[in-house]
């Protein structure tokens, strides 16, 4: 019995020491030495999602994360996190950055840093191709059931529409995939999502995008406020990638077209 | 015509041979008391009559109609379910622990079976129930719940409840064994009244005075068999078997 207690005590000490190591020491710019930890909500194709095997993360943000960490000379680690509270994880140092199709907004800039934009995005309205419903603008969504992912820019976009007087029935899902499921099953009239997400479904003949808004949203890498060292390094890495064509190659690989113009 | 006749009833609970070839015939208006030590199988025998216990071997006749015929656990003769239900209605039972329905009032307890089983109208059932409660001396408790009554009162209600179904024969399974001594009398009095009115009764009991006074016939059972049988006079004053003599010595 005493041996067990002793073993537990040793284990507890060891664990508390390793927890200490997680705190950023002076001069260190990552929460864990040698590692570049990236927080993301893996379930947002084509930016970050699981491959057919159900466990390998793939997507644009994954490619970006790998490229940036290579430039920084660090080992990349992806931390799957629920979108609800993902930015809080920066504060509590669960990871170094958030690369999760995170839009740079003035509200968010009040509590965290953002790198320069790495791709531009707009909202799009998607419908079922055979439904006969063809909204040419957000106004055509009047009286319809609209599905989108909660707490994203799509959510904010629809809220703005509602405040401007548009009346519609919202269906707010935790994951964007569910919103598209809902559309396919005919339980909503339209999906509003990031145009980049739609890029993933564009090949599916069941869906059609009938309206694309201005690419006025920009995705950036979110970094804990005050970690200026990492911010500088990430920005430098992004500049390099744009200059040496790595970024263009990634656009083509994931989206099928060169989106360099979106961040000019 | 006998009301109940059993032939060689044999019952085993696993390895325990509880009833060994019990045969009994009860004529109308007869009061038969069964006495004997605990574990003799008295209650078990009583309960085979109305199918609360299953028999392995033996025959049971009610009103000279064959009800059950078993041989080593297999049925030789089966009466239809409907027939069986009808026949079982001829028997009423009063339990040692009364078994009144606690969530119903006294009156409801007495009415409930006639209404649901005999499909009597509520008014008719109520009238008869009140008459029966009067007969057992508890009309004033009609709207009480059983938990407000003493043991003796509850048992009298139980008797009224069984009588409400107008059975041909009443089976009493140690009706006073769970009662405080001072409450035994009121129940025995009701039973005496029933006997006087000509009800056929089989009573398993430890109340020897009652048996002596009221029974037409007394059976002494021990270890699953009827050891001796006779009139109360014979059984109590001239016991023939040694075991009965010993038993009487120990209880009287």
């Amino acid at each position, binding site marked *: 019995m005493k041996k067990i207690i002793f073993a537990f005590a040793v284990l507890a000490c060891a664990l508390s020491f390793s927890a200490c190591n997680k705190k950023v020491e002076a001069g260190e710019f990552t929460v864990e030495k040698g590692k570049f930890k990236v927080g993301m909500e893996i379930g947002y194709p084509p930016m970050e999602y699981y491959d057919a095997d159900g466990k390998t993360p793939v997507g644009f943000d994954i490619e970006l994360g790998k490229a940036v960490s290579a430039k920084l000379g660090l080992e990349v680690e992806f931390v799957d996190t629920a979108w609800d509270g993902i930015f809080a994880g920066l504060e509590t140092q669960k990871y170094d950055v958030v690369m999760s199709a995170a839009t740079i907004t003035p509200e968010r800039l009040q509590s965290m840093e953002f790198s320069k934009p790495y791709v531009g995005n707009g909202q799009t309205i998607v419908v079922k191709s055979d439904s006969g419903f063809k909204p040419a603008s957000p106004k055509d969504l009047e009286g319809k059931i609209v599905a989108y992912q909660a707490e994203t820019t799509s959510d904010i976009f629809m809220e703005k529409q509602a405040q401007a007087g548009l009346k519609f029935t919202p269906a707010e899902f935790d994951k964007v995939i569910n919103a598209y499921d809902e559309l396919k099953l005919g339980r909503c009239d339209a999906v509003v999502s990031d145009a980049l997400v739609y890029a993933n479904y564009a090949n599916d003949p069941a869906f059609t995008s009938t309206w694309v808004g201005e690419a006025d949203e920009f995705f950036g890498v979110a970094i804990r406020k005050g970690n200026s060292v990492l911010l500088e390094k990430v920005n430098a890495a992004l500049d390099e990638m744009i200059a040496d064509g790595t970024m263009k190659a990634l656009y083509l690989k994931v989206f099928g077209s060169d989106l360099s113009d979106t961040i000019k | 015509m006998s009301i109940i006749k059993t032939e060689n009833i044999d019952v085993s609970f696993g390895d325990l041979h509880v009833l060994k070839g019990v045969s009994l015939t009860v004529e109308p208006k007869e009061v038969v008391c069964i006495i004997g030590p605990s574990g003799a199988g008295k209650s078990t025998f009583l309960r085979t009559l109305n199918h609360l216990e299953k028999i392995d071997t033996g025959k049971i006749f009610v009103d000279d109609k064959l009800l059950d015929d078993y041989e080593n656990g297999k049925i030789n003769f089966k009466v239809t379910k409907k027939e069986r239900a009808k026949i079982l209605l001829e*028997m009423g039972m009063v339990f040692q622990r009364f078994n009144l329905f606690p969530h119903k009032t006294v009156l409801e307890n007495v009415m409930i079976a006639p209404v649901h089983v005999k499909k009597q109208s509520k008014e008719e059932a109520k009238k008869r129930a009140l008459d029966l409660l009067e007969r057992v001396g508890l009309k004033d408790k009609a709207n009480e719940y059983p938990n407000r009554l003493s043991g003796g009162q509850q048992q009298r209600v139980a008797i009224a409840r069984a009588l409400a179904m107008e059975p041909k024969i009443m089976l009493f399974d140690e009706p006073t064994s769970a009662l405080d001594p001072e409450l035994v009398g009121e129940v025995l009095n009701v039973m005496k009244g029933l006997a006087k009115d000509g009800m056929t009764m089989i009573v398993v009991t430890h109340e020897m005075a009652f048996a002596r006074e009221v029974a037409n016939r007394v059976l002494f059972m021990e270890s699953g068999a009827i050891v001796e049988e006779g009139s109360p006079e014979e059984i109590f004053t001239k016991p023939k078997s040694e075991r009965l003599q010993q038993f009487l010595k120990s209880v009287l």
Partner: protein
Amino acid sequence: MTSLQKIIGWIPALLEGAKITILLTLTSVAAGIVIGLFLSLGKMSKKQILKKLCGAYIFFFRGTPLLMQLYFLYFGLPKIFPMLTLRSKFLAAFIAFSLNSGAYMAEYIRAAIQSIDKGQKEASHALGFNYWQTMGLIIVPQSIRRLIPSIGNEFIMILKDASLVSLIALEDITKVTRSIASSSGNELVYIPAMILYLIITAVFSVVFNRTEKKFSVYE
């Protein structure tokens, strides 16, 4: 705007969510009791097939997470059998929660029924009641009193489990709260939300206590 003003501003939305939460809880537990009653009778039956089927149902619904059951019913089934696409989110939630609650209630009911004195069955038999009369008039009514604490518990559990419906975009208290929190960037809304849950729980508890007292008149 002061915090209090903000909170007051959120109350209408929270109350709308409360309607869904309470309605879902009440209907699911009620349906669960009915389902549970038949399941428990089935499990106590002498017919082997019935016994095994009921046992399997109970095993499945108690052995898998409610979250999965809800998700599978709403998203999984329609993909396999398009005919089974449920249009109404509330209906889907109601079905999933009822089926689940039924499995748990079955065990509570079985325990309550089996706790009723054997003598009650014997007296019923001696009076000529058939199985259904015995159950319906004598056994089940007496079981109800013993069930009240369990039913009360189940209400309170489902009340909280109802928050899972955000998965299918049904706007219950929790979903409304999260929406407000993220769009206003203010976690303050969790306070009135939790107080709302507490009030509902307290009301349920009082009702159940009163009911329990009422039923104990005869015991």
